[in-house]
């Protein structure tokens, strides 16, 4: 094993434009999209028939037949078939966690290069047979005699033909993620207008980034899409103000279909490597993955918000690196909901929260909004759960590279199950 660790380099990334649910990619499977995304990365970095150290990716909504989704995608891609792969799943943290795992193996010298990615489809979703029917079929399958089989078949009811449809709800609380976010938004007194402002900025920033060609070497067109389908360059406060709230109840409801991310289909991939491997292959180093941290909160019985875990992960990572929240040139806070970004930032500014919940003497303080999600984020681009991490890592690495050496970027991603993943990149 290597005596010393090294920082993994981010060489570049590729993703397909994100599509709204049941639209442009409605006939594409997770494997289709991940394979296309890998092939785009292969083409961009000349990796055809080459073996990279490992490909790590995942999907949040996954068919049981896709148990080896990433390996199957690799086998169908132009990468060498001798490239090992494995799947990870950490809800919306999947993509970033995959990048951390690849980076850590590179840091330890176990691999020289690797691809981290993620994919999700809410269109080609894994419908399951009704739970009662499933049990009947299992007992039918294990029945050995005709009477046993007949007895098992007698358990079938017409109502069991209704399939189980995956719900965007927390299993333990029965609440949709948006309902959870609405509770947090209310607790932190996040207003409708500031959410809409953040949303408009996300659309304008993403549109501007497309217009200046920022995504030319980050996105590969797929199935007729060349830009994210959810992007509305002409988004305005006036238009958003007309929308009715969809999450939360009564007068205080602030969360609309615009300031919440829509269900989306898409995939992303990031190429990571050691500096040496990048040099040998004549490839650039955009940034290094410096450090990362996860955290989890008790959102069921502990009274913390479902999506507040990044607030807890952040001070741990900052302290380990001797940094303050203000020591960064760019911030990428995943816009699961506009209110989530705002609640998280408000928590970091709040002396009571930072003292009582984070155990800090002083609050982490505020973030310069001009440095936040400068190329747009999930509200505009959409959020195919596992693909978001890869989108952010590649975009931030490129942004840091453009800004020059020694620039720092911070990533914060909240995830279902009360989890959060944060990371530091540096050019």
């Amino acid at each position, binding site marked *: 094993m290597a005596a010393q660790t090294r920082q993994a380099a981010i060489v570049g990334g590729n993703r397909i434009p994100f599509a709204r649910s049941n639209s442009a990619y409605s006939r594409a499977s997770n494997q289709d999209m991940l394979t296309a995304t890998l092939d785009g990365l292969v083409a961009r970095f000349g990796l055809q028939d080459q073996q990279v150290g490992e490909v790590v990716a995942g999907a949040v909504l996954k068919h049981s037949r896709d148990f080896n989704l990433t390996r199957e995608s690799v086998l169908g891609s132009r990468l060498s078939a001798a490239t090992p792969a494995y799947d990870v799943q950490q809800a919306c943290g999947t993509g970033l966690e995959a990048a951390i795992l690849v980076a850590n193996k590179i840091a330890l010298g176990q691999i020289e290069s690797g691809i981290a990615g993620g994919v999700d489809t809410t269109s080609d979703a894994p419908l399951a047979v009704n739970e009662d029917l499933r049990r009947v079929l299992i007992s039918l399958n294990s029945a050995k005699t005709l009477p046993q089989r007949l007895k098992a078949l007698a358990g079938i009811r017409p109502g069991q033909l209704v399939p189980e449809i995956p719900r965007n709800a927390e299993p333990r609380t029965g609440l949709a993620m948006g309902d959870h976010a609405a509770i947090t938004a209310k607790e932190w007194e996040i207003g409708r207008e500031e959410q809409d402002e953040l949303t408009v900025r996300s659309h304008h920033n993403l549109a501007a980034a497309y217009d200046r060609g920022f995504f030319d070497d980050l996105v590969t067109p797929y199935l007729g899409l060349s830009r994210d389908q959810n992007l509305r360059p002409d988004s305005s406060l006036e238009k958003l103000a007309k929308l009715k709230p969809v999450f939360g109840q009564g007068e205080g409801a602030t969360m609309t279909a615009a300031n919440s991310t829509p269900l989306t289909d898409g995939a992303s991939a990031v190429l990571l490597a050691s500096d040496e491997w990048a040099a040998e292959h004549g490839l650039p180093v955009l940034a290094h993955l410096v450090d990362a941290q996860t955290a989890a909160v008790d959102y069921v*019985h502990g009274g913390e918000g479902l999506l507040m875990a990044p607030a807890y992960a952040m001070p741990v990572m900052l302290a380990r690196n001797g940094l303050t929240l203000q020591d960064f040139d760019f911030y990428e806070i995943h816009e699961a909901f506009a209110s989530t970004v705002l609640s998280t930032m408000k928590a970091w500014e709040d002396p009571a929260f930072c003292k009582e919940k984070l155990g800090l003497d002083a609050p982490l303080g505020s973030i310069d909004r001009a440095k936040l999600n400068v190329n747009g984020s999930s509200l505009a681009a959409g959020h195919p759960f596992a693909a978001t991490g890869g989108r952010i890592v590649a975009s931030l690495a490129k942004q840091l590279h453009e800004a020059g050496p020694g620039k720092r970027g911070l990533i914060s991603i909240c995830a279902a199950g009360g989890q959060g993943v944060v990371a530091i990149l540096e050019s």
Partner: protein
Amino acid sequence: MSRTVLEDAPAMPALFARAALTARGRGGDLPDTRLAREGVQVDPAQLAGYARVCRFPLADALPVTFPHVLAFPLQVALMTDRSFPLALPGLVHVRNRIEVERPIGVGEPLDLEVWAERFAAHRSGATVDLCAAVSAGGAVVWRGRSTYLARGAHAPEGAPAADVEVSVGALDRMAAQWRVPDDAGRRYAKVSGDVNPIHLSGLTAKAFGFKRAIAHGMWVKARALAALSGRLPDALTVDVAFRKPLFLPSTVTLSTAQVSPGGWDVAVRNAASDTEHLVGAIRPR
């Protein structure tokens, strides 16, 4: 006191039928009898079904509420016997207290004993406690006390006052929301054996004066406990009051509050109207 040991669990559908037929003409004091079963083995299939319906993890120790379904048939047999003063149809489960001395292993042979006590006067009738003791290895490891209210009934002269309240703290934070489907009663009946018609369908519930089928109180209690899986001590007391019936289907909320290490207050309320279905106190022993 007389004590009868039964070989098998009494057949519940027959008991409920008999209860309906023999509802009239009852009275007097509680019978001084105990019903028992010895060396009872838990049926793994029943346990798995129970765990699934109540959302407990299937483990090598019994869910806290499971011994109730072992003892319940004996309690029903006691209540349907001619000597029992109150008619089973119309009895409302208003409180349930469970004391657990230690976790019970799935394979442990269990001795069950049930009896009735505490015939008490209530402002709208009389209450009676159906008790159960579950022993393993010669020691009582589990106790259950179900308090039933008989509206319009009269407790005997000199009876104590009914004790049906459980006090809990504020409980203003929702932990979970449950969509309780209209077949929740049938599902629990299948795994618990409690085939009381008021839980099975709207039609059978109407026959007993309810506008719709109502959820089993013990299912609501079990599900609330299951939601706290992993956070409860091995030895504990769970005392719940069943307030208003939970009509099927309904959407309800569970609120929880930790009040001490291993101690929790819980409440289950209707999501729309805030009607309180269950309040409970869980305390370490």
